[in-house]
């Protein structure tokens, strides 16, 4: 008689195998190797100042990627986050320039991101558009266009210093945006892993049909997911505007692709149902470290883009190859 599920199995042993350890910490290992290599190549890389700088520069992408992660876990994609970031960036600056207090301006920008994201979700579920690519591609263009319209195409600079704190400030030696990322990450981690709604989201990514037939309100969950993605894009806008001391309409151009790259490098799957907050943070850091390190090594921006493209494909390929090997070993 083969074994049934053992009543007293407690911790499942499978969690300790080498393959699953590699799966869990593969992206982190990649980050450490990358840091080691860059440290060897440039004596300016492994300094406290520079590493804090990398964290600060990675913060915007990390925030946007958290929302993108939740979307990708549902087997979706959000192409509009870069443009929503741009629009919120301009809006918050315009409001403050017209005398609205920073706090209210920030809340308004976050609300706009949330609403535009929710709109993506509503378009997807209620109009039965065939794939999230469509509504978010539409939103990507609309939001970018609106950002250019309301700003007249010009950056809105010189923002109040209390606002700039979240982009450029520090608490002790810790950059303020890093604290923001930590808070958002903790919230997203708890949401995805400790709440039934988070569990629903993984189930929807794994098999939407089975999720629906188990009583999970799939449409409502998807609307929430895209709203969260809009919210984190707006949070990214606050940090970016603060750091640059400017709300500029071309903020976040290409941001959707950076966030998708961070999520995928972090071990999430386009097929849905898989992805972690910690992996995504590591993914965003890998992107940031690469850019920073290549800058220090005087590699031109053009070549940096080439390298990042190769890293994205290589990271996913390594992941797939490892899975194949694990599947073969398991048979």
């Amino acid at each position, binding site marked *: 008689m083969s074994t049934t599920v053992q009543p007293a199995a407690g911790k499942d042993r499978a969690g300790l195998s080498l393959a699953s350890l590699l799966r869990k910490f593969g992206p982190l290992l990649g980050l450490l190797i990358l840091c080691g290599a860059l440290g060897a190549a440039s004596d300016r890389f492994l300094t406290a100042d520079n590493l804090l700088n990398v964290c600060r520069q990675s913060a915007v992408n990390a925030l946007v990627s958290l929302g993108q992660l939740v979307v990708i876990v549902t087997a979706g994609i959000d192409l509009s986050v870069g443009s929503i970031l741009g629009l919120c960036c301009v809006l918050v600056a315009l409001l403050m320039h017209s005398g609205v207090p920073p706090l209210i301006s920030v809340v308004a920008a976050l609300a706009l991101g949330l609403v535009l994201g929710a709109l993506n979700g509503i378009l997807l579920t209620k109009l039965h558009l065939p794939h999230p690519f469509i509504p978010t591609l539409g939103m990507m263009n609309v939001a970018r266009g609106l950002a250019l319209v309301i700003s007249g195409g010009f950056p809105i600079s010189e923002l109040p210093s209390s606002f700039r704190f979240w982009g450029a400030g520090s608490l002790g030696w810790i950059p303020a945006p890093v604290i923001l990322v930590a808070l958002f990450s903790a919230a997203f981690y708890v949401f995805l892993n400790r709440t039934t709604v988070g569990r629903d989201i993984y189930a929807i990514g794994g098999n939407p049909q089975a999720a629906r*037939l188990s009583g*999970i309100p799939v449409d409502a969950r998807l609307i929430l997911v895209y709203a969260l993605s809009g919210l984190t894009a707006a949070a990214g806008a606050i940090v970016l505007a603060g750091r640059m001391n400017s709300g500029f309409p071309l903020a976040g151009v290409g941001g959707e692709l950076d966030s998708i790259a961070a999520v995928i490098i972090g071990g999430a799957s386009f097929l849905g149902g898989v992805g972690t907050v910690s992996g995504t943070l590591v993914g965003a850091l890998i992107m940031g470290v690469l850019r920073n390190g290549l800058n220090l090594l005087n590699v031109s921006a053009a070549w940096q883009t080439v390298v990042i493209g190769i890293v994205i494909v290589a990271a996913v390929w390594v992941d797939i190859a490892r899975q194949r090997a694990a599947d073969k070993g398991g048979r």
Partner: protein
Amino acid sequence: MDHAAPLLEARNISKSFGPVGVLHAVSFDVRHGEVHALVGENGAGKSTLMNIVSGVVQPDAGELIFEGRPVRFEGPRDAQALGVGFVHQELALVPQLSVAENVFLGRYPAARGFVNYGDMRRRAHELLAGLGHDLDPKRPVADLSLAERQLVEIARAVAFDCRLIIMDEPTAPLSDHDAQALFRSMRLLRDRGVGLIYISHRLKEIFEISDRVTVLRDGRHVLTQPTAEVTQDEMVRAMIGREMEARLHTASTGSVRPGEALRIEGGINLCVHQGEIVGLAGLAGAGRTRLLEWLFGAAEAHPRSQCGEARTVWVNGQLANRRSPLDAVRNRLALVPDDRKSKGLVLGASVFQNIALAGGHGRFWIRRSQEEQVARRWATTLRIKAAGLSQPVVHLSGGNQQKVVLAKWLVAEARIFLLDDPTRGIDVGAKAEIYDMIRKLAGEGAAVLMASSELEELMGVADRIVVMHRGRIAGELPRAEATEEKIMHLATGGAD
């Protein structure tokens, strides 16, 4: 053609995957013009043996002899070149393409790079006619019924000049009626000298269609005999090594209580009492799945059912909301869907995650340890065979997967079970366990509405059988009066 030698002979085939021995010196042969049934519980080694015969897997030991000559298959192409065809359970057709294009997929009749569509359609039509069916070769496969798609797969094997065709549970998704049509095609092929290997869990069909039968158990060969010389009891005993028949046909539990658990009024009138098991019979397309999914708030009403009349549903005497499956779950309904892989399970997720899928609605925080305890208890009660709660369900056998789906609803404390072909493609042992569970639930007062394509199963389990025909209820038979003839009479539209 040399009919003395077997078409294909496998001698002393052994195969292990890692440390697990799957086949132990199994011998097996197929003759020209015979249907050879291959039976055994899931995990008995049928699939592996067939994968070896069709070149997908290479044996560790033993030899294959094709028409008297030893052969070695390095891959499926080698087997195909000799004329071995495999009609898979999960059909491998391109839905957007036409029947003819699918039949000749990858080998279109062409001249100088241009496909000769006229010739292709004509030949496809001939092939299908040779199987006893008249199917328009221009129709897209997406429009075809499951039974018709299977026919296209078989036509493809014939177009390849296959002399040995392996069919892996071809009737699992078919109604008895469609299965008969498939058998007609199989007999036509047999009469032309084609050898057929037929894998099925439906013993009745094996007696109907096969000339010889081979039973495997735990990777070993148990018996090969002319089907006419074996009884069903002998076959079942050979498969499971113990007496099981009694468990498949116990008397009704007699647990029916007066309280109405479920009542439908309108175009369809149907009532299920607490503690009652009502069977739902009907041919494929009669609307059984549609009715169950509609009850669960997951599908529109059947287009052919009496339209215009509002159909209302009462649960435990109260008018029930049915806007979404969530309403149904709140009313403590459960749906075990017809296709567990696409509708019942998140395949990549763990046993625990699947069991927890329906139980958490209405709570915000996950109560991990408590939920694990409940899940573990049900997994033990249902005897789910898994390496642990964290094992992905994709690696479980069909029977264990179905038990996971059941466990999900037991955790959610459902009281009304809508079961849509709950034992499809499941081996005899797991089937008996699922019947036991259904009876136990009814014994505890749960109401069960169970659709099945297997009449025998319905007659063995249900207290009452409701027969559907073209989206309506054609009649109802109490357990004592139900016979296969009466059910088929109603299911094919005969008057009550």
